[in-house]
């Protein structure tokens, strides 16, 4: 067997992968009685393990099995190999080690070779070739399976359009020729591909290019009694091989096979004259039909998926056929074309029935799951809208709810145990989840109504989120549209563009809305309406103008990166008009040297810009002054990491044959550089976690000069107090301590207070700086797992993040300038929706698609070019690659809360000239002044983000459930659901990571203040 032999590998147009396996055609034309060549059609999913299962058991695949592809378990069903063993045939196997794990201890002799390393084209094939001929000539076998893997790996690594593919195919051609020479008279040679490949060299989906492979049958004796005729099968399904081989070798057909014997391989007349050819066509069909009927009878009793009328029809058909056949046998005739046609029709209809009803559904569980998911989304929405009201209610009794839910779950389990005798865990967990959600919703409804009763004035305000006007506001409307788009296959296929469109539309709403409210332009500049808005002293026109222009500028940046991100999309199978982005091919595959250099320079350039921008941002806010772990990371690890990544690209892009004498070094570098990058990444993240503070407290000596404050005063986060702030307790104390110590110094009083005083650089961005750095480092690490060209896309991602943050900050500032300061830190829906849609947008803009074919398996080998031993590490690397944008945006989500505070200094600077004094310099220290509001806002932000992600999952679950009989369900909706759900899980984990980092910083800041002023801790 040759993994990956596509049927058109012997076409006439001269591509590198075509026209190389001439042996098939030559033999087929020169010796028509000895061989046949058929297109060989696989059932999707076209992954190797599924295919091996398919043509050994003969049954149809179940879709979810795809997850087992790299952790293949032993086949428990009846299969060919098992039957061979039962009869005592000696099965010798060599090649892909997937077989060994599927059929442990079933082979007489086995020579497995590791299959997981895609870069390695030759180990498996050479291993087979060393043993193949000697084994063939020897007498130690009845069935010999040789699974060549090089073509498959070549396709994955280089694509079909590469000289290496041509070499590989020529090698295969030679192998088949020499095997044909050695085949003895009583041997049947079956050469087949288990699946095809797409134009990019991948497989797994169900386009025709992936499912169609070649099947070549050869025997040195004239094996085919009749010359190729019109009524031969034009396409052979893979399952048909099972009964054919079983009957030819004289073993029982595996129990669950639904295949149909290949008639041309059996003699048309009479019972077997000689032992080699086995039963006649009619006999073979009869045995096959009986076996299929038996399986159908058992299966229909067990699964009940087949409609009864179809089943009755099939049963009748079989009874008619069997009586006819028995009559026929009694008459002693040997061949009847009508009967064999009828038997074939019966087999085909059974197969079609099974295929139609193979996937059967449990509607009850579906509905239960949908309800639980919907309630969970509703719960997130409630929490995000009512967080203030809910927390005001101190005795919320969450514990009671959890307890009740657990009790209900245990009760359900006990009930199941009593009534059924076994426990189905899914139902218990569903009951628990449902109860807890219901309990929570009831409690929140009660607390809402009690709030209404208590203070009528505030009642309507807290209830306002239920009105249709609120629910149809632009951000929620866009979310709704996005969810609706998941229900249509056309929109799912065009998802990348649809999401970009929605992001653009929603972003456009922000300036339009601000303009509508008259906030975008300074009010007093308009001579026509001088006194509509009372010109408050807090909104000087200069500030408004500045903020407005900032907003417009960042909007332009956002739009630019949105538009450019469209150029990085990948293409689905079957989209003929679509051209995949040239940046998606890894540099090793680019043949033109000049183009390669340009791509490389572009990638390294964007890598440099990424690093520079991060450092620039941190430096601007004064976070690079101290000497903690985070600052060390920003100073050294970040640049070092990007250098590592850039060097790794250079090494992996270097052509393999041009530096022969440096091959050792290159191999070493390919191993060492990415691993060093992983280590640096881990070290950096750990350092940030351990020591997240980026505050530099300057001990002001007595002989302070102006030159000490080289960083301009805007770095200073908290230098003085305003009278109102004295009401709050912690920060003012620090200020007072600082001021007092300053007074002590200036008055020259006896002891020199060694306590640090006065200036704390970077205190204003103490929360956002570690988070930003964390995101940046993580982005570099994730970038390494992508093709080199994606560096540009990642740069766009950074730009878009920055643009979104700044737009949010500017619009918040503009709103605040005109209204009374609201006091809370709520993040409105619009930026959160934009943020979460941007995650989906960059999922597509980093070359991913919601289909299994487009998973970048190559990511598993970055830093591990020789393959893995386990499956955990490669799986996690592939997940990190696939959901890179989800990870980035989820971790960075809390930045939405901080950014308006970070930017507020800049806003006030424009208005107040040298605004050193006053409250405006406090920045993120505001959060510490109101710790409860801070945690509430954090809770609200994360539940809002979760709600938007969760609603998308809910919509795709709905799509898959409602459209489960749709033509596209296995091609579009089911993969979309799985990707959406896994993306949601990854997002949840990363959001939790981001939030916990913020909390970690909060704790660290608390310690910092305690250390600074021990008195504050009393």
């Amino acid at each position, binding site marked *: 067997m040759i993994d990956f032999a596509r049927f058109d590998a012997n076409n006439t147009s001269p591509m590198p992968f075509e026209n190389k396996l001439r042996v098939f055609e030559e033999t087929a034309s020169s010796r028509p009685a000895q061989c046949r060549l058929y297109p060989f059609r696989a059932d999707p999913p076209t992954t190797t393990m599924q295919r091996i299962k398919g043509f050994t058991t003969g049954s149809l695949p179940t879709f979810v099995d795809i997850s087992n592809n790299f952790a293949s378990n032993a086949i428990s069903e009846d299969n060919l190999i098992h039957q061979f063993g039962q009869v005592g045939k000696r099965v010798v196997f060599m090649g892909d080690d997937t077989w060994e794990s599927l059929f442990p201890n079933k082979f007489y002799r086995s020579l497995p070779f590791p299959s997981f390393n895609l870069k390695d084209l030759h180990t498996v094939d050479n291993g087979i070739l060393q043993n193949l001929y000697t084994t063939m000539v020897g007498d130690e076998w009845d069935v010999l399976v040789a699974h060549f893997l090089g073509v498959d790996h070549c396709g994955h690594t280089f694509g079909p359009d590469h000289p290496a593919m041509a070499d590989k195919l020529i090698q295969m051609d030679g192998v088949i020729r020499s095997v044909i020479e050695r085949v003895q008279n009583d041997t049947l040679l079956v050469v087949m591909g288990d699946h095809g490949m797409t134009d990019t060299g991948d497989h797994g989906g169900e386009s025709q290019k992936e499912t169609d492979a070649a099947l070549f049958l050869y025997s040195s004796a004239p094996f085919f009694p009749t010359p190729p005729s019109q009524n031969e099968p034009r396409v052979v399904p893979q399952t048909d091989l099972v009964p054919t081989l079983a009957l030819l070798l004289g073993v029982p057909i595996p129990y669950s096979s639904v295949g149909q014997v290949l008639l041309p391989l059996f003699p048309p007349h009479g019972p077997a004259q000689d032992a080699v050819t086995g039963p006649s066509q009619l006999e073979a069909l009869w045995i096959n039909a009986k076996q299929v009927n038996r399986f159908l009878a058992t299966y229909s009793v067990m699964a009940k998926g087949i409609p009864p009328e179809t089943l009755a029809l099939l049963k009748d058909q079989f009874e008619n056929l069997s009586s006819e056949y028995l009559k026929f046998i009694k008459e002693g005739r040997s061949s009847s074309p009508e009967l064999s046609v009828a038997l074939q029709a019966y087999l085909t209809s059974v197969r079609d029935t099974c295929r139609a009803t193979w996937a059967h559904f449990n509607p009850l569980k579906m509905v239960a799951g949908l309800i639980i998911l919907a309630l969970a989304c509703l719960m997130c929405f409630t929490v995000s809208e009512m967080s203030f009201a809910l927390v005001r209610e101190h005795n919320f009794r969450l514990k009671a709810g959890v307890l009740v839910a657990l009790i209900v779950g245990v009760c359900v389990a006990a009930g199941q145990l009593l009534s059924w005798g076994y426990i189905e865990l899914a139902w218990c967990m569903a009951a628990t989840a449902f109860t807890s959600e219901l309990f929570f919703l009831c409690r929140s409804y009660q607390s809402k109504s009690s709030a209404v009763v208590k203070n009528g004035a505030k009642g309507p305000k807290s209830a306002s989120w239920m009105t249709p006007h609120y629910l149809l506001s632009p951000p929620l409307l866009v979310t709704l549209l996005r969810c609706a788009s998941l229900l*249509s*296959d*056309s*929109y799912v*296929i*065009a998802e990348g*563009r*649809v999401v*970009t*469109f929605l992001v*653009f*539309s929603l972003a456009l709403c922000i300036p*339009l809305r601000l*303009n*509508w*409210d*008259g906030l*975008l*332009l300074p009010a007093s500049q*308009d001579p*026509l*309406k001088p006194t*509509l808005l009372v010109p408050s002293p807090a909104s000087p026109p200069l500030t408004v103008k500045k903020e407005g222009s900032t907003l417009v500028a960042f909007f332009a940046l956002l*739009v630019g990166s*949105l*538009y450019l991100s*469209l150029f990085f999309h990948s293409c689905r199978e079957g989209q003929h008009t679509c051209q995949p982005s040239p940046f998606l091919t890894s540099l090793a595959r680019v043949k033109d040297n000049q183009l390669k250099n340009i791509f490389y320079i572009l990638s390294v350039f964007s890598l440099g810009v990424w690093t520079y921008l991060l450092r620039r941002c941190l430096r601007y806010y004064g976070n690079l002054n101290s000497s903690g772990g985070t600052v060390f990371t920003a100073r050294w690890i970040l640049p070092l990491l990007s250098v590592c990544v850039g060097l790794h690209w250079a090494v992996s892009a270097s052509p393999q044959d041009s530096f022969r004498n440096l091959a050792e070094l290159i191999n070493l570098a390919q191993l060492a550089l990415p691993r060093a990058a992983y280590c640096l990444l881990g070290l950096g993240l750990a350092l940030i976690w351990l020591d997240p503070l980026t505050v530099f407290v300057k001990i002001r000596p007595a002989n302070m000069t102006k030159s000490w404050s080289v960083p301009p005063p805007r770095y200073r986060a908290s230098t003085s107090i305003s009278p109102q702030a004295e009401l709050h307790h912690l920060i003012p104390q620090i200020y007072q301590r600082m001021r007092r110590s300053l007074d002590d110094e200036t008055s020259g009083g006896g002891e020199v207070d060694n306590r640090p005083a006065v200036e704390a650089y970077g205190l204003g961005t103490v929360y956002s700086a570690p988070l930003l750095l964390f995101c940046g480092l993580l982005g570099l690490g994730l970038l390494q797992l992508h093709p080199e060209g994606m560096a540009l896309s990642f740069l766009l991602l950074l730009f878009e993040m920055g643009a979104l943050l700044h737009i949010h900050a500017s619009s918040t500032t503009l709103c605040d300038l005109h209204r009374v300061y609201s006091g809370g830190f709520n993040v409105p829906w619009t930026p959160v929706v934009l943020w979460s849609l941007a995650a989906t947008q960059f999922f597509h803009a980093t070359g991913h698609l919601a289909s299994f074919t487009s998973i970048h398996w190559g990511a598993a080998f970055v830093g591990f070019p020789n393959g893995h031993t386990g499956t955990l590490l490669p799986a996690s690397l592939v997940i990190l690659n696939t959901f890179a944008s989800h990870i980035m945006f989820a971790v960075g989500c809390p930045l939405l809360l901080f950014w308006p505070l970070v930017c507020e200094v800049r806003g006030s600077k424009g208005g107040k000239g040298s605004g050193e004094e006053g409250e405006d310099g406090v920045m993120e220290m505001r959060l510490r002044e109101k710790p409860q509001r801070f945690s509430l806002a954090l809770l609200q932000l994360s539940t809002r983000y979760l709600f938007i992600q969760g609603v998308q999952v809910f919509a795709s679950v709905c799509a898959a459930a409602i459209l489960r009989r749709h033509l596209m369900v296995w091609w579009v909706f089911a993969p979309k659901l799985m990707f959406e759900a896994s993306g949601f899980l990854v997002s949840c984990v990363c959001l939790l990571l981001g939030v916990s980092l913020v909390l970690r910083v909060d704790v660290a800041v608390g310690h910092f203040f305690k250390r600074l002023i021990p008195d504050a801790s009393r």
Partner: protein
Amino acid sequence: MWDHEIRAMVSTHATIALSVLVATVVPAALVPGFSVYGTHLLWIYSVSGAVAAVSVAFFWLLGISPPTRKHTLGYKLSRLIRSCLYFFLSCLFFHTVIVLYGAPLIDSALETFSLAVLLSSLTTLRCLCMLGPNLQAWIRVFSRHGAMSVWDTCLQITVALTVLGAWVGAFAIPLDWGKPWQVWPISCSLGAMLGYLSGLVAAPAWIRYHRKQLTYKCK
């Protein structure tokens, strides 16, 4: 309140809608093989021309154009030239926005530009007629307190509905129904047209319904 204006508005809008109808029907009689789908660009230009001509004529006759301080010929000429320039710039602006929304950059530039011309003649031209070539005033009109007459409110409604119609029209494009109106830019231009027509109906109706609440500070 505002009864006179509403009546004028209704008759203006009826005439404009009629002109759209005429611009669709008359070429069908004159040009062989004319159809809205088949020769879409021709339809776009004929409708744009008709709407432009009727709007200019009406708003000039009704005298809703902004007050001009000078009445010299040179000033009027310069206003005219600036208006033409603004119209062209707005075509370019719409073209850019449409491309940023995801329209093909090079492939069907003519179609995209035609859609931009249609949108400009449905929206920008009205602004030009009512407010003159004054960007500040345009921006001002589209704010909550920006409308200073019934006509400004009417402008808000029609422009918003036209743009919204074109936006909604884009939703038909990805669907795989293979209908003739899914070809770029037919669904968008039809959406814009329908939005515009509904705006012509909705604006007087809305103003009449809310005529008690409407107050304009400066006029």
